């Protein structure tokens, strides 16, 4: 699914990622944990193609594509999804319109027929109900005036509509109360299958109680310093990042 080899990335001449390696197979859920400034969000942004990241060295292969050659929208079309840490507000654009536009853009990329209004609504209602997202919220402008929890729920709704092959969750748990956390985790677990992979970026082990990872990696100073199974996260929670090193 995803293979990252010896990735070096600078941001404004500052070295952030320094030789990162990671391989995710189809159907696997990986968690990346690490202290502030270890390069977690940089990794998410480089994978999704945000500007301002200078890839100095290394290779990223996503489903047999050289990922670094693709535009962000092409990566989305190929099935890469990023649930943002801070989803941005787009005033005046209704969620309904936004969701339908994004779905049809991705379908168009895959050379599938675009969804008409009726079929789109059918699918939307089903998915929104599952993650307990109020339909009135979807009618409002995208993320505009949403609470932290509503924004994250909206990200998960988009993920479930776009049905990506690889979903990256960038600190989706931050700012969520326990009920919202469970709903979000439930949404993710429901999407898990043999083909779909997840990369979960988080500070805390808490989310991993609900979304159980196959592998846990600890990122420090731009490198993965330790990998293990879900127990590594529990150990980390007890000892802290200092204790693991």
């Amino acid at each position, binding site marked *: 699914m995803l293979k990252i080899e010896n990735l070096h990335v600078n941001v404004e001449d500052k070295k952030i990622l320094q030789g990162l390696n990671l391989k995710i197979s189809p159907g696997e859920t990986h968690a990346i944990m690490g202290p502030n400034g270890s390069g977690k969000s940089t990794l998410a942004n480089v994978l999704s193609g945000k500007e301002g990241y200078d890839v100095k060295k290394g290779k990223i292969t996503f489903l047999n594509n050289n990922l670094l050659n693709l535009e962000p929208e092409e990566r*989305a079309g190929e099935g890469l999804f990023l649930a943002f840490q801070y989803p941005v507000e787009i005033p005046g654009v209704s969620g309904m319109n936004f969701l339908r536009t994004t779905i049809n853009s991705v379908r168009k990329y895959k050379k599938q027929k675009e969804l008409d209004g009726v079929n789109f609504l059918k699918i939307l209602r089903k998915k929104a109900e599952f993650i307990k997202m109020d339909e009135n919220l979807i009618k409002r402008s995208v993320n505009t005036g949403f609470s932290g929890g509503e924004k994250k729920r909206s990200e998960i709704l988009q993920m479930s509509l776009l049905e990506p092959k690889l979903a990256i969750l960038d600190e989706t748990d931050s700012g969520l109360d326990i009920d919202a956390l469970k709903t979000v985790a439930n949404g993710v677990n429901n999407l898990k299958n043999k083909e779909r992979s997840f990369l979960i970026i988080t500070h805390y082990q808490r989310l991993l109680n609900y979304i159980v990872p196959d592998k846990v990696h600890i990122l420090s100073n731009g490198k993965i310093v330790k990998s293990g199974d879900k127990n590594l996260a529990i150990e980390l929670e007890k000892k802290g990042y200092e204790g693991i090193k």
Partner: protein
Amino acid sequence: MSIDVETKKTVKSITKKYKYGFTTNVESDKAPKGLNEDIVKLISKKKDEPKWLLDWRLKAFRAWLKMDEPNWSMVKFPKIDYQDSYYYSAPKPKKKLKSLNEVDPAILSTYEKLGIPLEEQKRLAGVAVDYVFDSTSVATTFKDQLAKLGIIFCSFSEAVKKHPELIKKYLGTVIPYTDNYFATLNSAVFSDGSFVYIPPGVRCPMELSTYFRINAENTGQFERTLIIADKDSYVSYLEGCTAPMRDENQLHAACVELITLDNAEIKYSTVQNWYPGDEKGKGGVYNFVTKRGACRGNNSKISWTQVETGSAITWKYPSCILQGDNSVGEFYSVAITNNFQQADTGTKMIHLGKNTKSTIISKGISAGKGQNTYRGLVRMGPKATNGRNFTQCDSLLIGDRCGAHTVPYIEVKNQSAKVEHEATTSKISDEQMFYCRQRGLDQENAVSLIVNGFCKEVLKELPMEFAVEAQKLLGISLEGSVG
């Protein structure tokens, strides 16, 4: 031979021909270049106008000679040589093309993106249409239906002939022939346009659009429109067309006058997409338009909605004179400038009567090297007790080489009047763009989506079918503005 002598000679010869029956071939029916009293007389004569109208034109022409081109706006353009233009060419100034193959492929691709049917594409591009799909008969059906209600909807020339009393009563009462340089020029040489009269108590059952009017084509560069809504009546009027119009005329100076009597309402919507010039700023239409409405009656209302995406230069201030007590004026505007386009547009809300209300929502979008200015006047006269105005001007910048300017003028002469003005300037953020692209939208679609959101308050004022095309048009106008 000096131009002047040549003009006179040719005019003479044409007028003579006319006496003997006007059967010259279409190609040659063009007055010589330049503008003088003879040309004004020729225009009037060709249209078989009554003497009072010719006199009005001549008064305007003489006034125009003493006026100077206005220079207070932000738009910059090379000096126009008014003597180097044709002021009369009829009846078909546009060359008919044989097939769509002769049309600029760029224009065709825009038609396609807008989803315009093939027959309609031909009409817009000026291709001779075999009336297999007979739009003329459609128009006739509508005309019959309107006539039953007593609604008059015809070309200006036809109205001069059939309803001279209405024209005489209202023409120039909102925009006097001395009003401003371009309006005065229009008053002297206007070619044709639309006339609408809605009788008392009638609610016009359909959106009136030039599209449904026979003889609507080729009204030329000096259009004149007059709409009168008599007591307790209502009409919604659509002007223009969302597809790019092929036009060889560079200077456009149109006039639109609206009049509402007691309890009447006029809703006037425009989508303007004239040729904006190329990416290098070459070519494009200069659109100098005077639009003004008078709420003469009590409780009457005039609402302007405009989406201005075309023209190299847009100079336009659709205004409302709120004379009647409790009358309401509205102005909703989206103006886009991309590449080298310039727009100086806004409105004037003149509050004269008691409890008059006005709302101004203006959305300016600048991209490329475009310059966009909102210029608006809100005046509360001494008798405008409890007058209210709310103005909101938002500017959106795309890229770092464009400009947005807001120039509000506020004059309040009544203590009880209230005027509110809000203004914002923002940019499409990199975060918004990336968010949309991460969800699969390419750059152009992302810009289009964000811009449509920005303009939503204005777009929702447009009649439904117009709104859908206008949305697509916003995206098309901004093509090439990012990346």
